[in-house]
């Protein structure tokens, strides 16, 4: 065999390989269900999405593909995830969603992370007929929004439910004689914190509580000590902060520094993050926060184990499980319909109930009312102590110092 012959053979071989590769590639492409995901990887909400949103997408896609893909009428199809970073910017989010719909031609899109993003992007998802099963989205406009967007579903509750949970917990402590009626309330000065504080004022008053300190602070305030000092000076029985992750950490740290003695201490988003327990350890025993879960529930326990195995980290004690459950709903609806028909899948979600790690989920007027509202760090685990339509809430304990 001379040199020319070798070359000729090699090039023929390569050409055959290349064609085979192309063929198998196109065969593969036809056999997948393309799922888009747009959420922050950078920007202010990225730290939260890295805990509650992205790992669940990874876990869900792996598990679906490990069992051979989604079972459809024309055989099983693997899911293929196409991810974009929305940079925590609604404009970027809409552009990315548009791209998923028109360039990548994805079959479905996973709902955005964050209340504002779910509301801002709803028109674009509606325009292309994508069902949008929102999780990290809490609003009192659920009725109005679902009326306007027939493919928009909610799973984590309304602002009022969310606040009512805190009022229930404090009322319970008061009725047992553990705390009095004075509440110090602070909020982060953005849409989320302001709305919660506005809903909370009348609900606290109705329940017989007196708000003795009521202040807001800008997002990213570098020193929260004046707020804790002010709240402490008002001598409250309970402290409630409608806070975001960096200030949840900051307010708690200052409360420890100032030895702020209240029988009920509540911070909102990120209290349920494993990093919160990791940072403060036993000092935050009996701290109350947004969310909660029941780690003794076998389905939740199994989910938490799988999450750790696949993603290498623990899920949070709140929205992580809801996020995974929403993906289960999507998968079961696609399999139920048997094809990637967005309109039929949306209708299927409305008409059926779904067996998920959060139990049986059913949408009434596009809203699934099954979620935890308040949790509490109890001996290293953040347990749900108040929920809507979920059993297994742990008893609330009064806070006893920062040790």
């Amino acid at each position, binding site marked *: 065999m001379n040199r020319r012959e070798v070359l000729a053979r090699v090039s023929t071989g390569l050409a055959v390989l290349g064609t085979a590769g192309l063929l198998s590639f196109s065969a593969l492409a036809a056999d997948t269900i393309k799922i888009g995901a747009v959420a922050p990887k950078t920007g202010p909400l990225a730290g939260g999405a*890295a805990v509650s949103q992205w790992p669940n997408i990874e876990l869900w896609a792996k598990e679906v593909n490990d069992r051979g893909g989604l079972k459809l009428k024309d055989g099983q199809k693997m899911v293929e995830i196409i991810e974009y970073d929305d940079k925590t910017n609604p404009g970027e989010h809409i552009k990315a969603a548009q791209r998923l719909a028109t360039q990548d031609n994805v079959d479905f899109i996973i709902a955005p992370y964050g209340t504002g993003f779910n509301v801002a992007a709803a028109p674009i998802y509606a325009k292309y007929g994508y069902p949008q099963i929102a999780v990290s989205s809490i609003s009192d406009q659920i009725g109005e929004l679902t009326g306007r967007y027939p493919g928009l579903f909610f799973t984590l509750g309304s602002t009022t439910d969310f606040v009512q949970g805190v009022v229930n917990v404090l009322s319970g402590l008061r009725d047992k004689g553990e705390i009095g009626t004075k509440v110090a309330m602070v909020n982060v000065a953005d849409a989320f914190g302001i709305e919660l504080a506005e809903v909370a004022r009348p609900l606290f008053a109705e329940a017989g509580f007196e708000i003795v300190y009521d202040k807001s602070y*800008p997002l990213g305030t570098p*020193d929260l000590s*004046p707020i804790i000092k*002010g709240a402490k000076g*008002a001598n409250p029985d309970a402290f409630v902060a409608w806070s975001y992750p*960096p200030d949840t*950490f900051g307010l708690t740290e200052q409360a420890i520094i100032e030895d702020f003695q209240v029988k009920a201490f509540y911070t909102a988003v990120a209290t349920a993050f494993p990093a919160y327990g990791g940072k403060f350890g036993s000092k935050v025993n009996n701290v109350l926060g947004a969310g909660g879960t029941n780690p003794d529930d076998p389905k939740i326990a199994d989910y938490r184990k799988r999450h750790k195995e696949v993603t290498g980290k623990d899920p949070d004690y709140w929205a992580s499980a809801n996020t995974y459950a929403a993906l289960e709903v999507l998968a079961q609806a696609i399999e139920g319909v048997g094809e990637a028909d967005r309109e039929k899948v949306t209708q299927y979600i409305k008409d059926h109930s779904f067996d998920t790690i959060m139990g049986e989920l059913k949408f009434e007027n596009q809203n699934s009312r099954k979620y935890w509202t308040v949790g509490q760090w109890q001996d290293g685990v953040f347990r749900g102590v108040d929920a809507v339509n979920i059993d297994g809430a742990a008893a609330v304990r009064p806070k006893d110092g920062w040790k």
Partner: protein
Amino acid sequence: MSSGLHGPGLSLLSNKLIEMDILVSGLLLGGTYALVAMGLNLQYGVARIMNLASGEMLVLGALAAFWLFTTAQLSPVLTMIMVAPLAFIGNWLIYQLLLRPLVRRAKNQGQLEVDSILATFGMSFALVGIMVAIHGEYFTYSYLANPFEILGTTVALNRFVAFVVALIIGAALVLWLNFTRPGTAVRAVSVNTEAARLVGINVPRMSALSFALGGAVTAAGGTLISTFITLDASVGVIFTMKALIIVIMGGVGDMRGSIIAAVLLGLVETAVATLIDPGLTLVSAYLIFLGILLFRPQGLFGKRTT
């Protein structure tokens, strides 16, 4: 909404306590702000690089502190000592490889400013991307989060440590700039690049030195700030903005000005948060900034250009 705490019936004693609280907490916050701004002052004032990636350099220091603390239980103060020389080398390389060509081709100060803003803006995205890949979640851990009693008011020990280090770095920089030969050369470059060259100062070398030193100070500040503020990979821009305001308030190229502006900002923000409303801290900061821009556009210590 009045909390009743600051009403007219207040006794003299608690008035004194509140004043002390404001003074101490304000000074500590000022120390934090000084850590954020001193590095940018060197980079902008001397090397003439409007470094929009300054905040990312700070967050990079914070990430190092967080990462070494959580994986190896290494004290952030030790990390700071390691990070400073590394950041110095890194920033020196950035200046020589990426920014020096811009300096060379710029026909005037204005063009260099535009070019350096664009280049460092791009750099900030690259740094954010790298940090997200390393750790996309919050950099949160607990170090010296203990109460510390000083002048009758309680502060966090980690904030106090950061203040002391800020004081040491600030004093060392001011002394170095005013009482040593290289420091004087750096100041000369900051005042007038052309004249400095005429008296035999190696301007490119002094600029590289200032840029590298500025980066080292910023990254060192980040390691300390991470002990009491929860940061994440994308939060740098907030620090860049704060640093920019302080540098412009104090006077570009004047270290004393930056330190005084930082302390002023810390005191005013704390006073407003304590006496009026925490919601108005940002407003107060921008009001002072606006006032200085209106009545002393060259900054507190800046020299009026002719």
